[in-house]
């Protein structure tokens, strides 16, 4: 009994630690006073002004576009890589997996400056494309780590059986391999999307002057003071993801219930 309540207190404390800043930001988004230190009454003003703020809307669009494109491209390259790597002999396989781990284990600041040096050395002007390349690069390892275990589980025999029964390799891939590894692909995509959305350091070093994602925009506003519209935007983003994820988690259960009846 004692042990159980201790356990619950501990869980609650960690939960507070994780979610206190999020609650704070949500409360701030309704704060009529521009200062973060004072409560100036309840308002919806920032939510209305958010949609009229061109600069914020533009960086939101850019952030989402980057997250989607980089996650999508990384998922394709990463999944294809897993299938190929899985066919290799042990030696090359472990070398490639070792190199794949480099971006995960390396410091982001080192990765960021190494990209910046390369783009400048090869005279590629910094902009949307360079940020996209940076994001794809740090997303691919996440995709490979999510998909690889599934590819290993699938094994060769069912694929070979499909080929023996007359399926073309592409047909066999769609019908046999893909359904098996799909959960890995989806979680790789989602993880990549989240990482890209939350990234600041790589974007900071590869973006050049003209463009801003939400992260770099917030960072540039730190000294002048963050616009309260930002709090409103992040509250909206957070809530929409929360609702989406709850729905996604509920759907399979609801389906099961219907099927069981």
């Amino acid at each position: 009994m004692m042990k159980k309540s201790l356990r619950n207190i501990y869980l609650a404390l960690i939960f507070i630690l994780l979610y206190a800043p999020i609650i704070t930001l949500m409360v701030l988004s309704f704060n009529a006073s521009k200062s973060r230190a004072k409560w100036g009454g309840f308002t919806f003003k920032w939510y209305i002004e958010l949609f009229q703020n061109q600069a914020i809307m533009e960086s939101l669009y850019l952030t989402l576009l980057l997250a989607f494109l980089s996650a999508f491209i990384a998922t394709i390259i990463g999944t294809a890589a897993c299938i190929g790597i899985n066919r290799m002999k042990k030696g090359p396989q472990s070398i490639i997996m070792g190199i794949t781990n480099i971006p995960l284990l390396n410091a982001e600041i080192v990765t960021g400056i190494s990209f910046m040096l390369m783009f400048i050395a090869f005279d590629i002007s910094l902009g949307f494309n360079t940020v996209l390349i940076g994001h794809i690069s740090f997303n691919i390892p996440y995709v490979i780590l999510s998909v690889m275990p599934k590819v290993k589980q699938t094994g060769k025999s069912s694929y070979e059986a499909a080929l023996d029964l007359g399926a073309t390799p592409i047909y066999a891939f769609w019908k046999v391999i893909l359904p098996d590894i799909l959960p890995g692909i989806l979680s790789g995509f989602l993880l990549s999307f989240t990482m890209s959305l939350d990234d600041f350091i790589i974007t900071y070093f590869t973006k050049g002057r003209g463009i801003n994602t939400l992260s770099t925009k917030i960072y540039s506003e730190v000294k002048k003071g963050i616009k309260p519209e930002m709090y409103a935007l992040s509250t909206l983003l957070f809530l929409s993801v929360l609702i989406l994820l709850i729905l996604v988690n509920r759907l399979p259960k609801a389906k099961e219930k219907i099927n069981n009846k």
Partner: protein
Amino acid sequence: MNKTFFKKYFISGPYLFWMIAFTIIPICLVIYYGLTDKSGTFTLQNIMSITTPEHFKALWLSLLLSLASTVICLLLAYPLAMILKGLSVNKNSFIVFIFILPMWMNFLLRTLAWQTILEKNGVLNTLLEILHLPSLNIINTPYAIIFGMVYNFLPFMVLPIYNVLIKIDDNVIHAAKDLGANSVQTFFKIIFPLSIPGVISGITMVFIPSLTTFVISNLLGGGKIYLIGNIIEQEFTTAYNWHLGSGLSMVLMVFILLNMILTFKFDKGEGGAVL
């Protein structure tokens, strides 16, 4: 022979190209810049500049703060992972969900929110005042930076440890108990040794980002506390001395390399504990 080789492996071709172009070449460039001066001649000066008092102090402080935050994360995360395992929520995804969800709120904003909470007249001190407790002044000190590191990187410690713990077969634990081990013995002789791969990958995933951060120190340290990350960032964005910045990055890479060697030694090629 050649044709089958091509057919078998071409599917991973795009990634192999990507890996060489965007992982290997950039790192080689950092090393090239780090070992040369502006005229392109070989020099060790960029690396040796770590011994100047200003740079060395930053590196020392970074090491101290990141070690502290790694230890705190481990102490917080291990019991947490044990509790989560004990809850036997068979929905693995739910726990991942709780820890990944905060990431959908921008990392900079979340860290800034701690500024609001920890400030002199912030939320925390107001609460403490209501409870008639002494106020806490940690904003703009190294303690606030440690706090920010623990907050930001705790999930990266919890998830690998949790992933390893739930894979431990309960029968092994039952066997130990049947053979007369008490719960302390079971923990130190069975559970902890089996969870070491998770602990090691957790340590890596907290220590390296803490050691190299420049954002957390900037936001919670009031811009007056310089970590090695801040110095490198300034060399690239304001001082435009890329050679010096690359040299200092190479010093950081030595620490990363040491960490990688350690990881591979304990984690014998499994790597899966990361996710």
